[in-house]
C-alpha cells in the first residue's frame, strides 16, 4: 500500500488535492463491491481491469521502447493456455498456473525477441503478427495438448485456501474483481518503477533514436528484450486471469489477432508512453465495446427520435450496429490520430494548459 501512495503522489505532482483524490479513487475501487452487487457492473469493471493490464503491459514495449508489437496476443494466449491446460489436465490450481504461464510467456518472448529484434520498424511489426499467427495455428493443430479448435472448458475452479481457511470459492464475481484490481495496480506500479529508473531512460532513448542510443552505450538487443519480457509477463498474467474468469478458451478467442489490435488501441486512444494513458484508454474502450455489443447505441438513437425502431433505417441499425464494432473502432482511431495525436490524456492535458494560460 505504501508504494501505491508514492505512485499517486509522484504522478500527480505535489498537489495535496490530487493525492487526496487519488486515494479516494483507490479506496472507492476497493470498497466498490460492497456497494454494487450487480454482476453486470462488476463484469464491466473486471473487463476494465483486464484492458488496463494489457494496455499497461503493451505500453512498456510499444509506448516506452517504441517497438510496435502487434502480436501481443501470443503472450496473452500463452498465459491463458498454460493456466488452463495445467488446471484441466494436471489439476494444478490457477494461482500456480499463472506463474507457469509467466514462465512460458517469458520463454516465448525471448525466442521472439532474439529473432524479431533483428528487424526494425514495420518489419518488426509484421514479424510480431506472424509469430502470433504461428501460435494460433499451433494451438489449433496440437490437439493432444490444446484440444484444438474445440478449446478447453473448465468445470470448476479449486477453492482457494490459506491453511484451512477458505479465502474464496470463486463462485461470485467479487474475487475476480479484487484479483483484477490488484494485478492492474501492480502493473501500473511496475510501469511507474520502470519509468523512474535507468530502464525507463534507456527504453525511451531507444524509442527516440535507436542509433543515438546505441552510440551512448545502450545495448539494443539486451534492452529491447528486457522490455519485451516485462511486457510479456503482464500480458500473460492478463491471459491467465481472463481464461480462469471466463472459464473457456479456444484459439479464436484467446489467440485472435483482434486482441492484439485491441491492446494497441487501448494505448493509442488513451495516450502512448504515459502511465495513465492505458487506464484512460480502457475507460473509453471497454464501455464503448459493451455499448456496441449490447445494442445500447441503437437504443439511444431511437430514444433521441432520430429514427424509429420500426422504420427501415431503424431495423437496419438494430440488426447491424452490434456487428459494426470494427467500423466504429476504425473511426475512433482515425479521429484520435487526427485530432489527439497524444491520445485522450495528451489532449486533456493540452486543454487544461491552454485554459490555465487564458
Amino acid at each position, binding site marked *: 500500500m505504501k508504494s501505491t501512495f508514492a505512485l499517486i503522489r509522484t504522478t500527480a505532482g505535489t498537489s495535496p488535492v490530487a493525492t487526496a483524490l487519488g486515494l479516494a479513487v483507490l479506496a472507492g475501487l476497493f470498497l466498490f463491491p460492497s456497494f454494487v452487487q450487480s454482476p453486470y457492473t462488476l463484469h464491466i469493471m473486471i473487463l476494465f481491469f483486464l484492458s488496463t493490464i494489457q494496455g499497461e503491459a503493451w505500453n512498456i514495449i510499444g509506448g516506452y521502447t517504441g517497438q510496435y508489437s502487434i502480436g501481443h496476443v501470443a503472450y496473452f494466449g500463452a498465459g491463458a493456455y498454460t493456466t488452463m491446460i495445467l488446471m484441466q489436465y494436471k489439476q494444478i490450481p490457477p494461482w500456480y498456473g499463472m506463474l507457469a504461464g509467466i514462465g512460458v510467456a517469458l520463454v516465448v518472448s525471448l525466442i521472439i525477441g532474439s529473432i524479431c529484434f533483428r528487424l526494425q520498424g514495420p518489419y518488426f511489426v509484421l514479424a510480431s503478427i506472424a509469430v502470433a499467427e504461428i501460435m494460433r495455428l499451433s494451438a489449433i493443430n496440437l490437439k493432444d495438448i490444446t484440444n484444438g479448435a474445440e478449446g478447453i472448458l473448465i468445470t470448476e475452479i479449486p477453492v482457494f485456501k490459506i491453511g484451512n481457511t477458505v479465502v474464496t470459492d470463486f463462485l461470485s464475481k467479487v474475487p475476480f474483481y479484487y484479483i483484477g484490481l490488484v494485478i492492474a495496480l501492480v502493473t501500473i506500479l511496475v510501469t511507474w518503477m520502470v519509468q*523512474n*529508473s*535507468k530502464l525507463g*531512460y*534507456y527504453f*525511451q*532513448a531507444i524509442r*527516440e*533514436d535507436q*542509433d*543515438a*542510443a*546505441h*552510440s*551512448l*552505450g*545502450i*545495448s*539494443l538487443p539486451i534492452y529491447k528484450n528486457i522490455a519485451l519480457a516485462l511486457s510479456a509477463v503482464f500480458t500473460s498474467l492478463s491471459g491467465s486471469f481472463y481464461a480462469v474468469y471466463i472459464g473457456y478458451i479456444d484459439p479464436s478467442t484467446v489467440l485472435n489477432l483482434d486482441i492484439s489490435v485491441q491492446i494497441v488501441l487501448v494505448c493509442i486512444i488513451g495516450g502512448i*508512453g504515459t502511465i495513465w494513458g492505458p487506464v484512460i484508454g480502457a475507460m473509453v474502450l471497454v464501455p464503448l465495446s459493451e455499448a456496441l455489443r449490447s445494442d445500447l447505441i441503437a437504443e439511444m438513437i431511437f430514444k433521441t427520435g432520430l429514427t424509429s425502431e420500426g422504420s427501415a433505417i431503424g431495423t437496419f441499425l438494430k440488426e447491424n450496429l452490434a456487428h459494426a464494432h470494427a467500423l466504429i473502432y476504425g473511426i475512433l482511431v482515425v479521429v484520435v490520430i487526427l485530432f489527439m495525436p497524444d491520445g485522450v490524456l495528451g489532449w486533456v492535458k493540452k486543454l487544461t494548459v491552454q485554459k490555465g494560460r487564458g
Partner: protein
Amino acid sequence: MATILEIKHVSKFFGGLAANSDVSFSLEEGMIMGMIGPNGAGKTTLFNCITGYYPPSRGEVIFKAQKISGLEPDRICRLGMVRTWQKVRPLAKLSVIDNVMVGALCRTNSLKTARELAMEQLKVVRMDNKPNFLAGGLPIGEQKKLEVARALATQPQLLLLDEVMGGLNPAESDEIIQLILEIKKGGGITQMVIEHDMKAIMRISDRIVVINSGEKLAEGTPQEIVNNPEVVRAYLGDFHA
C-alpha cells in the same frame, strides 16, 4: 605520449565502391586531430568504422591497445570512445537534462548520480539554464551543444565530433571552438574533429589528416597541410596548383 587510437589499413567497401581504402593513422593522448576532406570523401564512413557502426572490410582499429573493430557501438562507448552525429540526433521527446542523463547512465545505475553528472555537463556547454526544455524544440546550435554534453556525460577518453559546427552561425561556431579547446585544457579527453570550416580546423587541431576519395591524402600539422600542394589540388582543382 601514449597512442590512444590506431587505425591500421582500414578499408570499407560498399559493393564495389571503396568508401575507405587503406587508411592508417594514429592519435596521441590529449591531442585534437582534425579530419578534413571534400564532401563524399569518406570521413563519416571512417567514423562509422571506428565507432562500430560498420565493421571495416579490411584492417583493424586499436583503441587503448585493444582491437575494437567488430565490436558493437555500445561496447565501444563503454570502453571510452563516443561520437556525435553530423545530422543531430536529439532524443526529441525527452528533456535536455534527460538526454544528457541517458549518456551519464552509461557509467552509473543511479538516477540521482546521473542527474548530477548531467547537470555538470550542461554547465560545461552552458545550457544549465534550460534543463527542462524538450530537446526536439531547441534551435540547431543548442542541439549540437546538447549532443556534445550527452557524449561527454558518458565520460569518454576519446571524443569524435562529426561536423559539430555544420549549419551554425559564426558566433555559435566560435562557442563550439571555445568548448573544444576547453575540453582539451581539461585534460583526459582526446578529440577527433571532422570539420569543413578551414579557419576553425586550423585553429583547434594539433594535427590534421586529409581524406580524399576514401584514401588518406596527407597528414601533418596545420601548417604542413596548408602548404601541401596535393591538398590544395584536392580542394581547388589542378588549375590552382
